[in-house]
C-alpha cells in the first residue's frame, strides 16, 4: 500500500505550490501513470479522499491518465507493446528490449479556483 505515501507526496507538492502561488480550492488533480509503473490506479483512488482530507486538495477530483507499456526491441528494430516489465520481446522473444513507456509516475497538473 505505498499508494498512501505516493498520495501524501502529491498533496505535499500541491501544498508547496499553494505556498508559492496562493489559490482557493483544488478542483482536479491529474496524474500520469504508466500501466507498468509501481502504483495501482484503483488503490490511489481508494485512498485519495482519506489523504486529501483536511488539505488544500480536499474534495478535489482525481483524474488518472494511463500510459501503455512500450519498448524498443534491438532485434526487431521496432517499438513493441509491453504488457509486463523485464520480460523478453513479445514479438521475437529476444532479450534486447528497452522499456520506453509505461513507467510514468507523475503529477501532471492541477485545476484550481
Amino acid at each position, binding site marked *: 500500500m505505498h499508494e498512501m505515501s505516493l498520495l501524501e507526496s502529491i498533496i505535499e507538492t500541491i501544498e508547496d505550490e499553494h505556498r508559492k*502561488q496562493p489559490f482557493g480550492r483544488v478542483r482536479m488533480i491529474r496524474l500520469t501513470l504508466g500501466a507498468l509503473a509501481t502504483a495501482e490506479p484503483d488503490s490511489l483512488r481508494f485512498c485519495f479522499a482519506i489523504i486529501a482530507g483536511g488539505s488544500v486538495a480536499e474534495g478535489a477530483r482525481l483524474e488518472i491518465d494511463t500510459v501503455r507499456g512500450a519498448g524498443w526491441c534491438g532485434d526487431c528494430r521496432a517499438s513493441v507493446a509491453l504488457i509486463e516489465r523485464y520480460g523478453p520481446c513479445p514479438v521475437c522473444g529476444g532479450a534486447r528490449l528497452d522499456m520506453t513507456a509505461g513507467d510514468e509516475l507523475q503529477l501532471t497538473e492541477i485545476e484550481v479556483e
Partner: protein
Amino acid sequence: MCAICGCGDGSHSHDLGDHSHALDVVHIPGWSQERTIRIERAILEKNDALAQTNRSRLRAADVFALNFVSSPGSGKTSLLVRTITDVIARRPIAVIEGDQQTSLDADRIRAAGAPAVQLNTGKGCHLDAHMVAHSLDELSLIPGSLLFIENVGNLVCPAAFDLGEAHKVVVLSVTEGEDKPLKYPNMFAAADLMLLNKIDLLPHVEFDMQACVAAARRVNPAIAILPVSARSGEGLGAFYHWIEQASRNQQIRGNGSSSSSSRMRSPPKEVSRMT
C-alpha cells in the same frame, strides 16, 4: 473555457447548468479565477532528492550503506547478526532496523554488538529517505564503517523508494519459491546483489537453484548472486568479499552523483557455488 460566459469550466451546460447566470450576479465573463497549473513532476521526486542528500552525506562520511530487502522471514536479521559477529572486529557497523512495530530486531542487533536505530513504520509498508535521514542524525557516522539498513519485510513497496544506499541487497531464502524474481520483478531489478539464504536447508526442500538464478537474471541480467547460510556460515566469506570490493568502489568513485540506479556492478557477478 465556456464559450457562453467565458469561465474556465467548459464542462457545464447553460441549459441544465451547474450554475445559473440569473443568480450569478457577480460573475464577470473572462474574470474567472479557475485555472490550470502545470506541475509535471515525478511523484517520488521529494523522496529521490532526500535520498540523494543521504547518499552524499554517507559518501562524505565514508560510510558504505546497504539496503536489505526481502519478504518477511527470509532471514535478514539473522544474516545481519551473523555478519556483525564476523566482521565488526575489522570494521565498525551500524544498523537501521525497519519494522512495522516492536524493537525486537534492533535488540538482536545490539546484542550482537552493533549500534542500532529502530524505525517503526506503523501503518507504512516501507522505509523512505526521510525516515532514514532522521536515523542518520541519531547514529555516529564513523569513517570507514558499514551501515546496514534492514527494510520492512515486503517485496513490493521498498523497491520504489531510494533511501540513499550504495546498493540494494535482496535476500531470498530457499524455503520460498524459485520463481519469486518473476513474481516480484521490480525488487529484483532494483537490487545489485541477491543473497540466496538458508542453503543449509536445501536437502530438505524442493528448490531449484538453477531456475531461481535464471529467473533473477531474466529480470536483471547483471545481478550478482551469492548462495549463503546465515546459520552455518556457508558462503558468507564471498558476501564479505563482495562488501569489501563494493565499498572500495564507492571510495574510488568518491562523492559523485551516481546512485544505485546507475547500475554500478563491479563486485563479483557469478554464483560461486551451485548446488
